[in-house]
């Protein structure tokens, strides 16, 4: 891996690590729908984990259409965001976390969000992972770099 690739990956990891919340976008019959969520991610950046109540719109959306997008950014809600803030969009497919992989994901999720222990344990909560195929990193207002994890070359395939 080149130093350049590594730098971009580190920037993405550090941005994800610095934030507790992400905006998850799902859709139903072409209608996009965005929700603010707590999240965690695997150190290799391959998977992002979120949890949601099973009666929510976003959960129903995910069951119908697994292709999603997430946005994580470090804005401070000041004008300095325009030059200083970074944002990363992750594109991938959502699926329910299987029983055998649950301990690993619970570990990373609760480490970041220990106050959500009860929420996560509830039988009415779905624990979902998103297998990321692409990250799109925006910095310095309009520098945009793509980091591809999957085999698909096209962002929207």
């Amino acid at each position, binding site marked *: *891996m*080149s130093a*350049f*690739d590594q730098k*971009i*990956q580190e920037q993405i990891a550090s941005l994800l690590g610095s934030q507790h919340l992400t905006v998850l976008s799902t859709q139903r019959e072409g209608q996009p729908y965005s929700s603010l969520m707590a999240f965690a991610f695997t150190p290799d950046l391959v998977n992002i984990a979120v949890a949601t109540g099973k009666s929510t719109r976003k959960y129903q959306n995910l069951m119908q259409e697994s292709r999603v997008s997430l946005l994580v950014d470090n804005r401070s809600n000041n*004008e*300095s965001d*325009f*030059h*200083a803030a970074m944002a990363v969009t992750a594109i991938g497919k959502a699926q329910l976390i299987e029983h055998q992989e649950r301990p690993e994901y619970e570990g990373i999720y609760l480490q970041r969000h220990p106050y959500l222990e009860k929420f996560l344990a509830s039988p009415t909560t779905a624990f979902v992972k998103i297998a990321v195929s692409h990250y*799109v990193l925006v910095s*310095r*207002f*309009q*520098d*945009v*770099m*793509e*980091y*591809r*994890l999957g085999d698909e*070359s*096209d962002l929207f395939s």
Partner: protein
Amino acid sequence: MKVIYFPDSLQTTEGDLRAVIGGKGQALFKLYNSGLPVPRPVCIGTVAYEQFVAKNHLREKINLLLHRKDLKETRWEEIWDISLRIQNLFLNGRYPAELRRDIKELVRVEFKNKPVVIRSSAPGEDGGARSFAGLHDSYLNVAGIDQVLQKIKKVWASLWSDRAILYRQELGLEVASSTIAVVIQEFIEGESSGVVFSKSPLNASQLIIEAVYGLNQGLVDGDVEPDRWILDRSVSEPPEHSSPTERKYQFLRCGNAGVCRQLLQPELQAVPPLDEKQVRSVVSLGIRLEKFFDMAQDVEWTLRSGHLYILQSRPVTARKNGEDRSDKRSWYLSLNRSYDNLLLLWENITEKLLPEMDDESNALERVVLQSLTDGELADELLRRDGINERWTSVYWNDFIPFAHGVRLFGEMYNDVVEPVDPFEFVALLTGQEMLSTERNQLLLECARMVSADDSLRSALLHHNFAEIDNQGFVQKLALLKSRFSMAGPGMGEEKNTDALIAAMILQYSSLNFAYQQRRQGVHEDSRQLESQFVAKAREKLPVDPEKLLEMARASYRIRDDDNIHIGRIAQELERAKAHARKRLQNRGILLNPANSVKDLSKMLEGYTPSTIRRSSAVHSTYQADKKVRARQLQGQPASSGIGRGKARVIASGEELKDFKKGEVLVIDSIDPTMTFLAPLAAGIVERRGGMLIHGAIIAREYGIPCITGVVNATLLIETGDFVTVDGYLGMCTVQRKE
């Protein structure tokens, strides 16, 4: 909140006002309050800067300019561009009503509308041991409230001067926290002026005085050579005086504004600007100030009607021993030349250097290398190497500094016109006859001939130049190679040059020949801008606007042309090298591409070089496992418009011939000897940054969108990628076809 400070405010606060009026303001207040001869200073506190910045939302605008890319990867020229943009934000900004009223009132009541001096006073500046004198701007002879208000804006903007940005780390320059105050004093027009170092920076036992007739400007900028007196501080002997080579000029106030160079009256030319008694008073002033500040001082003074005035005083800063030689910043700053210095450079370049260089390359061209013996060829190689080196150093010492003419014009244009676009002035410089456009015109003429003659086309397709019997065409080909150095270095053998010229003529034959018509409309606009500028400049500028414009046009043109002139010298060296290589190879001697001129020369004389060097050029190619790729890259918008096409990344001279019409040129840095590609390109993306670099110049000539200063452009874009070049915003978007 208090905005305006008078010297007595220092007594009432008893303390340190440095944070609100800056180091220089505080020092002047102290001197004035002690009864030392200082024109009464008044300060506009840092809060005024902050109010102005807040009202005009400048904070984030400056941040966006400074953070477009990592400043560590930003060339000095780009920093100058950023600084010009920031200056323009200030010039276009509006004063808060109350602040404007306060300043107007101050000028009326305190200065009775007399001409004033407006100086910067940054809280961090002139602070003890580390002095960054001259980082921010000062203005002399500012008359009228509008001029005062404008120059205050410029002093504020100079917090972000190119010098300050270069030294940002040492200064702790931050958009969020940095601020600046302004000092206003009556303008004293002395009969002679100068500086005194109470201790010489070079020898602490000496005191040095430098003096010129008129104002200090010429001395400070280095345009007027001063008289100098050196005195041993421990011995009471008369000072040792040395005269300049000539006392010909002095700087005086200009009628309308500013100061300008004028001829010194003949009767004064033989007389030093200070008599013995005056020298003694300057000496005692220096010593007095040293005692006052308890530190050696560098004092600017002026002498009017027998009265000596202190203009400013700051600690003497010794040059650090073993200054880091890799620190090029002081060299960059030395490129900021004064108007008078540029006029001298201009004359020297056009009257002397360019004709000499052309004579030299013509003479080299006439040498029939084939007729030289081995020994003669060996000598000829070394001679040519020396000639090439000599002109290269002339290029750095004279041609590069003259390029500042364009920048100085830009600053003056913006002062006078206050345009919304800080680079509007470039429109007045484009559309000139330049060697590169002349060469492209010649290529186009060749292309027309080829379109009308199938035998020519076929000869070019098969590189059979020898078969061409159309003498007109043959002459044009010869011109392309010699006068326009299309056989420049990096092309290697002659057959490569032929291949390149053939490929370019064939590509040009598919061009729409009407592109020149676009220029007509552009010329109309620029003529209008020009007459507006000249009319306003007559009132506001201390120099003849037409002469200034002529100088700027020469600077713009020569910046491009000089590379072609010097390219001819390099090409002649290359020709001798190629001939020597051929001669050696014909004898079965093995050569290495890295063999230097000296190697070749020795080999011709029968020696074998002891070590065979390997090429040290390691191209850092991006070993793409293609995990990371660019989607959108930022640069600077150097030529407006939008262009789309397949990228062609050019890494070496040999790849030039592969360029096809309609492609987007992606290159590390384009040289005028390669700009024949420009008319073919749908857009230009360049790694090297700057609004006034060659790629930008040629792109504007043809109205092609161009962005410069794209970090890693040739690494992140691949030949074949589909690229959109946005010359309005300075971005390119990359779409990769798999």
